[in-house]
């Protein structure tokens, strides 16, 4: 069911269309106003004109008809007829005596009735005429409009001394109602004129605005054309096509935008190239990294033939110990340069590990591959490398896996084959090369690996992994609040130990996913158990590939936050080798998590570099002494001495120690005497699913008992 609140984004609108729309709306609004104005003004003008004419006619007819009231004036009759003929709008002229009785009518209408004037119009005409407000109007029979006016005569008062008057003011007058005049006006003519005029005006205005809209639209399109021209390059840019160039416009505003887009495209292109390089190349040597190398091989496909060389530097640990990692890195750069020089154009070189390199030699035969491999071995052996005043003869072991046409292996598998051959070369005495010979067992192993790959993916997908927890006991108090989470693969009733599948997981780059599963699961289970055991701590093992992932610390903090587990309940265990080989990447990750409260333990200490310098700089709390020194601790004085030394050093550094593989009581007693802080091993407890749940149950019982007692 789709989310009701989900808003479907509407397609983007066109700026040109919007501007045209605005222009059209504006033009239409102005046009409507103009049309309304034309109609209104025309109506007003026509009406005003008609009223002016009407007023004039009333005045003239008042004079013209005056003669009717004394005598039958033929001249007046002729004048009235002429008047009616002259003005077509006049339908009739009627005169009435003071009582409203008909006196005279002149009409262009046949059979026009001439009844006496009604009382109401008669009074209205008289009232309006006296007040000077104009003529009486009756528009009820529209388009016929009746107008009327009272007729007054004005003569000098009888008592006026006309000869003795010394100004007009001395002439006193008297008014006398003579009668009434009424005219009938045909307003349909005015209305027709109005309609005609307004139609012409409206047509002109509409035409003007259509032209305006047309030319305005063209002008807007023309004006925005440079902007529209940006659309295609911008779309390409948005789709990831970085090789776009916006043509420079003649408009300075657009030119600025175009230049900005071009600059942005160039910057994005450079950034993209830089990122690609970062993602695809080893920063130290400039060679391709493992991911990019495998990608390229996959791109080449199975039709390619050639050879895969896996190169591992011999005794490079010595270089690192002598020069430090910085110096070691510089030596690695020189090795990479030598490899470049030794290969042909078109050969693909990558650095796939600390001191491990691979070279894909396309289209070479076995013999030629051997020659090239031997040349690399000789180059490194015979020409020493110098750094910081030290000279090294860095030898290397090379494994070669031949790639036949239509071979059934993936690129990763071929690299693994070359890797196996390289291990064999080291076993055979280093500074040599070894060719991987595909035999049935190997093929079976490879096929097994392939099966493991599918199995691990299925396990991750279907949650077939489970965590078992081994207790770690505080030696001095005998209290166990600390467990190490150990992964197992459930296969029906059978449990598969990690030794069986971790190597395959590494080869198929599944370790990160597995580690993430372990972390998430351990934190989720811890969240449940902490309700009964609030001081419970869980140790989680991390592999190198996971640990150096850039988002690792964020992932951990997210999971802790998600389950409400405090960071100090988690102890991450990393091997000494992982911590030191990726020291520069590891320290920030450790610090980021330590800052949040997480704790770290160095696992298997004593078998790897055992570098006290690194140990001092690593922000870890625990040192887990490798089982090699614990298993025979009781019998071996050497081991006892080593362990004592490690404990002493740890104490001085403020770190706590954990002894692994404590298998019996004697060993437990001994480590107690030596001063080791924690003990782990079968004597303390085997890894199991139910250790912690049982402890929880016990805690609940104690709590219940105490509550009952209370």
């Amino acid at each position, binding site marked *: 069911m789709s989310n009701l609140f989900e808003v479907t984004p509407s397609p983007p609108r066109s700026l040109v269309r919007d501007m045209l729309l605005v222009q059209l709306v504006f033009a239409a609004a102005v046009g409507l106003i103009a049309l309304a104005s034309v109609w209104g003004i025309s109506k007003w003008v026509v009406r005003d004109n008609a009223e002016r004419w009407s007023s004039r006619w009333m005045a003239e007819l008042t004079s013209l008809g005056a003669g009717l009231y004394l005598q039958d004036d033929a001249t007046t009759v002729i004048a009235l007829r002429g008047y009616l003929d002259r003005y077509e709008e006049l339908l009739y002229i009627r005169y009435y005596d003071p009582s409203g009785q008909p006196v005279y009518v002149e009409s262009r209408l046949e059979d026009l009735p001439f009844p006496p004037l009604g009382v109401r119009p008669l009074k209205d005409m008289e009232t309006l005429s006296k007040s000077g407000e104009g003529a009486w109007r009756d528009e009820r029979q529209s388009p016929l409009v009746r107008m009327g006016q009272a007729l007054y005569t004005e003569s000098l008062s*009888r008592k006026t*001394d*006309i000869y*003795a008057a010394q100004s007009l003011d001395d002439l006193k007058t008297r008014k006398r109602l003579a009668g009434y005049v009424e005219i009938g006006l045909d307003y349909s003519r005015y209305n027709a004129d109005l309609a005609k005029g307004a139609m012409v005006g409206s047509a002109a205005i509409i035409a003007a605005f259509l032209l305006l809209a047309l030319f305005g639209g063209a002008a807007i399109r023309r004006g925005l054309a440079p902007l529209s021209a940006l659309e295609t390059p911008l779309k390409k840019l948005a789709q990831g096509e970085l090789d776009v160039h916006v043509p420079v416009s003649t408009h300075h505003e657009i030119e600025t935008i175009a230049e900005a887009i071009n600059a942005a495209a160039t910057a994005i292109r450079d950034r993209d190239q830089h990122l690609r390089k970062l993602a695809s190349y080893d920063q130290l040597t400039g060679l391709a990294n493992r991911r990019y190398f495998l990608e390229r091989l996959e791109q080449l496909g199975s039709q390619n033939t050639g050879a895969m060389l896996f190169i591992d530097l011999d005794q490079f640990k010595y270089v690192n110990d002598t020069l430090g990692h910085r110096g070691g890195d510089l030596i690695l750069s020189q090795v990479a340069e030598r490899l470049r020089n030794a290969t042909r154009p078109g050969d693909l070189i990558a650095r796939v590990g600390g001191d491990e390199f691979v070279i894909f030699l396309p289209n070479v035969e076995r013999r030629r591959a051997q020659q090239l491999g031997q040349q690399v071995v000789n180059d490194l052996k015979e020409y020493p490398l110098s750094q910081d005043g030290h000279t090294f003869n860095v030898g290397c072991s090379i494994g070669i896996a031949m790639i036949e046409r239509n071979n059934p292996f993936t690129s990763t598998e071929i690299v693994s084959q070359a890797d196996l051959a390289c291990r064999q070369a080291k076993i055979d005495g280093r500074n040599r090369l070894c060719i991987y010979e595909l035999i049935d067992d190997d093929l079976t192993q490879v096929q097994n690996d392939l099966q493991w790959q599918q199995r691990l993916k299925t396990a991750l997908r279907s949650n077939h992994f489970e965590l078992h927890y081994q207790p770690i006991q505080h030696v001095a108090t005998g209290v166990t609040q600390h467990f190490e989470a150990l992964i197992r693969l459930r296969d029906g009733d059978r449990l598969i130990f990690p030794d069986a599948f971790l190597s395959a997981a590494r080869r198929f780059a599944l370790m990160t996913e597995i580690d993430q599963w372990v972390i998430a699961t351990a934190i989720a289970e811890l969240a449940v158990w902490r309700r009964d055991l609030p001081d419970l701590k869980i140790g989680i093992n991390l592999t190198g590939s996971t640990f150096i992932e850039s988002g690792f610390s964020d992932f951990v903090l997210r999971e802790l936050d998600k389950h409400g587990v405090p960071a100090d309940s988690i102890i991450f265990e990393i091997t000494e080798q992982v911590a030191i080989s990726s020291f520069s990447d590891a320290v920030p990750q450790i610090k980021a998590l330590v800052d949040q409260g997480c704790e770290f333990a160095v696992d298997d200490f004593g078998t790897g570099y055992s570098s006290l310098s690194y140990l001092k700089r690593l922000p870890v709390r625990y040192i887990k002494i490798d089982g090699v020194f614990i298993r025979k601790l009781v019998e071996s004085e050497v081991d006892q001495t080593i362990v004592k030394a490690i404990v002493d050093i740890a104490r001085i550094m403020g770190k706590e120690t954990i002894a692994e593989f404590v298998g019996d009581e004697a060993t437990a007693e001994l480590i107690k005497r030596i001063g080791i802080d924690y003990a782990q091993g079968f004597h303390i407890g085997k890894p199991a699913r139910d250790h912690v749940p049982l402890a929880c149950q016990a805690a609940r019982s104690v709590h219940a008992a105490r509550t009952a007692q209370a």
Partner: protein
Amino acid sequence: MPVTTPVILERETVVPPTPVRPKAPKPDKPEPDPVEETEKTSPVTVIVSNQSPLLMQVAASMITRSPDPVTIIELEKTVAANSSSQLDPFDTNQLAVALGERSTEWLKGRTSDFIEVLTSAAQPSGRHIPALPDPAWQFDIWSQHFPDARRIGAVISEAYVPQVQALAIEAEKTGLHFIYRVAANDQAAQVEFRRLTPEVDGLFLLPDPAIFNPGLITDVIEHSHRNGLRLLAYNGFMQSLGVDLVFTAEPEDVADAVLELINHPDREAGRIKRFTVTTPVSRQSVSRQSVSRQVVRADE
């Protein structure tokens, strides 16, 4: 209805008001004709309105010029002086002279035998002093001033037709052509004046109260000016309105004419002997009241 009682003013107590209009110079005014001595007549009662300075001057002139006692009844003072009195100051045995229309109206209810002076009535009821000069004299003066204006027109009411016919006959004798139109009222008169326009060179604005009113007067004058018509009128203030030729009588001349009629009761009518002829220097200067005046004997 208010009852008016005229107040009789003794001769010695009558002081005519100072004329509003300065008296025009009359350079060649001859001495008034000596009134012929007759047998002793009855005292004369003059009815006058003090609203008219001109008529008051006429009354005053009659007092100074008449050998017989002249009693002045001032119309407006009758109510103020004796409003409650039922006595009528008018003695029907005395000869009455009505100066102006109001006096005539007032007297008509009291006697039928009186002298009307400067009446505008078309047909005076009895003896009267006509306001208009002799027609022949008028046309003569007209011709002197406007020799090219040979066609003269006038618009009058029905009542004035006899008088105008006399004018028309006299005009023919002097070689002029006099056309008149009859109008029922002021509105019709306005139309008739316009109809006359193409037929005449000038108009006589005869003082017909039935059709005349201030609006019509100013309209006709403006219309005439626009159409180049010469105008003749009989009121002094008309000159300021733009009338080309104005005939007015001086109060003393009117008084003389009245006294002459009183002394010659057999005569049907008296005539004013002298008229003042006023003409503007030009029509453009009318607004500045610049006039040229001359006094011409009407009976010359």
